[in-house]
């Protein structure tokens, strides 16, 4: 497997669209998210049309929140998000138990590091999809607002945790990001409290404090979501009546 390894250690190519410059790998991740969002939408839409042709719409009976196909797809995505978060924690615990200097010590450590890195990427792909699906489904409406708010807070906590992880990765990228982003924390007046150049502080935040925050927020979000899983769409619910 090591011989077969594809090197991603050459400089990336970039795409320019006016002021927006984006690397190919990042563009690929965005395309993947859009693909996983639109393809189920198109399939779900086609399936819904098929269902409609077999039924007439009426104002009574059970409401159809979204097509069964999309409903299942969203549930799979929720499970994938949680599963990848568990994998992030599991690989992170192994890395934390061995220390920072272990990160580049051997093929085994490189593999565990890779596992952590790629499960974080998978987690963010699935969590952004989760965010997009629930935004379009108006999951912030009315009684479901606490569920939405807890999700948004958890999402930002995850982003901040991943950012501190990037700072302690021990490469040019982490050095440069630390040097650039320290200006932000200094500019908003918290430079003394939060110093991205202080590897010790960033490491303890990344492996001790933020994981507890992320785990607690995730459990909070899930518990709210499970209590309020009755979904009310923006429009009046459509109802089906079977053709005689």
């Amino acid at each position, binding site marked *: 497997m090591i011989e077969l*390894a594809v090197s991603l*250690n050459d400089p990336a190519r*970039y795409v320019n669209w006016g002021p927006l410059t984006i690397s190919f790998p990042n563009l690929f*991740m*965005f395309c993947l998210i859009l693909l996983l969002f639109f393809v189920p939408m198109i399939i779900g839409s086609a399936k819904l049309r098929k269902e409609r042709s077999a039924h007439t719409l009426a104002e009574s009976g059970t409401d159809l929140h979204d097509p069964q196909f999309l409903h299942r797809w969203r549930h799979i995505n929720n499970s994938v998000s949680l599963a990848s978060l568990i994998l992030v924690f599991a690989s992170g615990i192994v890395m934390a138990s061995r220390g920072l200097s272990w990160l580049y010590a051997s093929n085994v450590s490189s593999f565990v590091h890779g596992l952590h890195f790629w*499960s974080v990427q998978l987690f963010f792909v699935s969590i952004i999809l989760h965010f997009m699906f629930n935004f379009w489904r108006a999951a912030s409406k009315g009684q479901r607002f606490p569920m939405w708010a807890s999700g948004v807070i958890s999402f930002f906590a995850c982003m901040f945790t991943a950012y501190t992880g990037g700072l302690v990765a021990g490469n040019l*990228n982490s050095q440069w990001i630390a040097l650039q982003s320290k200006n932000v924390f200094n*500019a908003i007046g918290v430079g003394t409290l939060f110093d991205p150049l202080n590897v010790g502080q960033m490491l303890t935040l990344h492996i001790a404090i933020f994981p507890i925050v992320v785990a607690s927020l995730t459990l909070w979000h899930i518990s709210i979501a499970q209590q309020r899983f009755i979904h009310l769409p923006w*429009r009046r619910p459509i109802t089906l009546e079977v053709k005689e």
Partner: protein
Amino acid sequence: MSRLKSSLRKIFVGDDLHGPAKLYRGTVVALIPILAIAILCAGFFKAPESGQRSLQDWANAAPTDFVLTAAFELANQKGKGSNGPPYNLLDRGQSLGPIDPQAHTDLGIPIDPGNDFVISPLQVSQTQGVYAAIGNFRGLSTDAQIRLIEGFVKGQGKAIDGALGKWTSATSSQQAAWTTSYINALGGKNNRETLEDDPSYGPVKTLTDALLFLAQAGTLDGLLTTQQGPYPSDFTKPALFLGDGKWIAEEAHSAFLDGDRMAVASGTNSFPGQFWLTPYAFWYSVKPFSTSRNADIEVFAILLIICLLTMYHPKIPGLPKLVRFLPFQSLRGKT
């Protein structure tokens, strides 16, 4: 096939389960393919490699930039990353109109660039750094070893003592005159090898050359971190000094990590980065933020607005109704 499909669907989605049980069972099942994908990616692509840049790398790769930056530090010249709160009051920092949090920050990480980055390491090196340099001697390239020997042959150790004494006993205006003269001369030549000594530089050339000597031997990296204790975990000082030079920016540029290319969201080489930060990093590459000296606090304000809008958009009158006009609502059927 259809039986397999329906049983997979049952396991994954669990039509017979509701609420938490459905999610937890789905999660346990999803762990298998997620683990498989992560193992495949980790096996084939691995993780981003190491490759941190040290002060030693900088001193060996771009000695002129190194000594010029050291002279800038001695001159306490403005516009560097190590200026302003919470490090010092050499710069006021950034502000957003009347909102000026940086100016009111306490100096929690006190840094005096000239003393901390140049004078203090040289003073310490006179007693212990030389031994560390000798300890590193074997690990050096032949060129660096030759430079090291040449330094000792020229009696640089004694010269540094004299230069340090001359610098510390001089007035600040005298120090400023020396550094300005040296910076102008070196900036014009852009090559420290061809720059001849001149009395107008005072001790600056000797001091910056000695610092280069320490850095090339690998001693300076340690000297800047061990001031707080023997086993450091805070690399703020060497990182700030490195960040004040041009070389690290050139290195980052060659790896496509500079600000215009959204550094925070970019990954290491061809690895995907923190692509989820693109909506934040994007603002740094558009005007007026790309040219503003207050870009960080301005873009942070935008980020704050984005966060608040994301969170509270259902509470803003009229805004939630816009969602009705989005195309995917139609997937739920017509009213």
